[in-house]
């Protein structure tokens, strides 16, 4: 299957296949179709303006010294780093650190927990496997928002140990460790691997852990990419969870703290500088793992 977004390579049209049947709308290229190309370029520019334009405005506004929220522009009028300086005074680096710690910790926890569980569910036969799979997968249709209130009560008084995770970053990390989607993706992928590999490793005397870590896991790199990029986007997008875990604003992650930076005196540059800092990590992850992201999105949809 050609993954359209992720494959910049030119697909060679087959012999006898004319250019116009390559796409659903039959876009033509070449000197003889200048009108068609111009129309398409115009529409592309429009799409770019609508979907990337706001982010360009965000970028330039973050570097613009401008107290007037109506004077947003595509190019900074008077470039400055003042916004970041003021944002620093408002603890933006502290919030960014909170965000990065939560994202790093939760992603590590989520991926390892999912990989462990998926290994058992996909590669082992044991009593209770079916019910466990069901237990994990049914949470995929449980919106996280629905359990927000009771979750905050549970975090305030953990069962058995009776500790409170309110106001701690751990309280934001631990609930994110449980994500049905990544267990599902990993399990489906691991089911497809041939069993001969493990049997051969077993005959060679490899133990359970070694079979998992050195035989199965290295084969799972495509799926690991998928759950990493989806996990990161999901974790970075968290809003309600940090909001309910936080005891006071110093516990906020950057996403939640953005609303405290709305200000009329310094202008929109402050909140835009914060927004830019919140945007950059997701841009980096997107650029690095774009292929995995598209693979994950399309695999699910085309199966159905």
């Amino acid at each position, binding site marked *: 299957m050609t993954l359209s977004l992720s494959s910049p390579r030119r697909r060679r049209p087959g012999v006898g*296949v004319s250019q*116009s049947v390559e796409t659903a709308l039959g876009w033509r290229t070449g000197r003889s179709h200048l009108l068609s190309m111009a129309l398409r370029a115009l529409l592309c520019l429009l799409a770019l303006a609508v979907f990337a334009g706001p982010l360009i405005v965000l970028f330039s506004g973050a570097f613009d010294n401008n107290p007037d929220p109506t004077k*947003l522009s595509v190019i900074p009028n008077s470039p400055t780093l003042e916004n970041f300086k003021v944002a620093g005074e408002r603890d933006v680096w502290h919030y960014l650190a909170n965000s990065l710690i939560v994202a790093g910790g939760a992603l590590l926890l989520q991926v390892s927990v999912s990989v462990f569980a998926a290994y058992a569910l996909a590669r082992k036969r044991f009593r209770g496997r079916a019910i466990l799979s069901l237990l994990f997968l049914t949470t995929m249709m449980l919106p996280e928002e629905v359990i927000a209130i009771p*979750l905050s009560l549970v975090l305030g008084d953990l069962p058995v140990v009776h500790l409170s995770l309110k106001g701690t970053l751990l309280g934001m990390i631990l609930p994110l460790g449980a994500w049905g989607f990544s267990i599902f993706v990993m399990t489906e992928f691991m089911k497809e691997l041939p069993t001969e590999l493990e049997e051969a490793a077993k005959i060679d005397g490899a133990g*359970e852990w070694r079979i998992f*870590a050195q035989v199965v896991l290295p084969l799972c790199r495509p799926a690991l990419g998928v759950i990493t990029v989806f996990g990161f986007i999901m974790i970075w997008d968290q809003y309600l969870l940090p909001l309910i875990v936080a005891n006071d604003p110093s516990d906020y992650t950057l996403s939640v703290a*953005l609303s405290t930076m709305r200000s009329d005196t310094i202008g929109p540059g402050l909140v835009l500088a914060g927004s830019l800092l919140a945007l950059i990590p997701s841009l980096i992850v997107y650029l690095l793992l774009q292929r995995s992201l598209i693979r994950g999105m399309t695999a699910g*949809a085309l199966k159905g």
Partner: protein
Amino acid sequence: MTQPLGHSGISTAVSTTAATEPRPGGRRRAAAPPAGVVKRRPRGGRRFTASSWVPWLFVAPALLLFVVFKYLPMAKGVELSFYDVRPFLGNLWVGLANYRSVFGDPQFQAALGHTVVLAVGGTIGSVIVGFFLALLLEGPARSLWFMRSAVFLPVVTATAVVGEIWRLLYYPTSAGFLNTVLGFLGIGPLHYLDHTSSALWSVMAVAIWTGGPYNMVIVLAGLTQVDRGLYEAAALDGANTWQRLRHITLPALRPVVTILLTLAAIRGFRTFTEVYVLTGGGPAGSTDVWMTRIYQLGFTRNEIGVASAAATLLFLVTVCLTVAMQWYQRRKEARP
């Protein structure tokens, strides 16, 4: 890709115990004990062997997290929905009173209306936008690949960031950014989030802005599956572009679009962050949706019982939508 087995620092003790184990599947094993119970207890010929508890060791972390942070809160939420929650005084069983107050509350009724409008409008809008984007940006050229990557950016941007930037773009005076742009076209100035009549539509536009590119990718994947031979045959038969779209492309995309619609609808009903960041439910409650209402009741007004009842209802709606989608897919598979 696979590393050689010889070089590892794993203790040999683990390897040897597992290696001397009989292969699984030889005979029926006893029910596996919970992780951690590894003592061998000879009882009626039942023995717990290594291969029966190893899987549980691998599952244990996930099981712990899911029980504590998913199932326990879920059970607690359903339980609390039947109580009048009173801190320090003890909870009072009130039966279905919380559900009655949810249904009787005009603000919840309004929120339900807004949620449905937002979910349905946002869903249909983002599927249409995604479809047009996919048709426009389909193709192998490198420049198109770049365009697709750029258009997809709103999807990976955190919702809070999306909210903050749109709040500024929507600045409601005639000098606001979007009003200036629209001014060139002779439209406006519009009030956007500032007015009860336009706020909900403005929120919906933002939802479409993030949902459209997401759907684009899935429609694009669907488009690659369409048989090029059919396009060629249509071209030979002299079909025009519209006829080709109508009779080849759209029917081929129908299963994909069905899934998109259901997924987007489920997402739409649980909308929280967009609304909370953009308007906080205002002005005058005109964009209050189900989740912002729950948040307000549960966390600012501390009516946890009523909020739990509303959350339970939302959960039931989600389950119904999911089950309906599953049922639809099964039926389709049974009769291809």
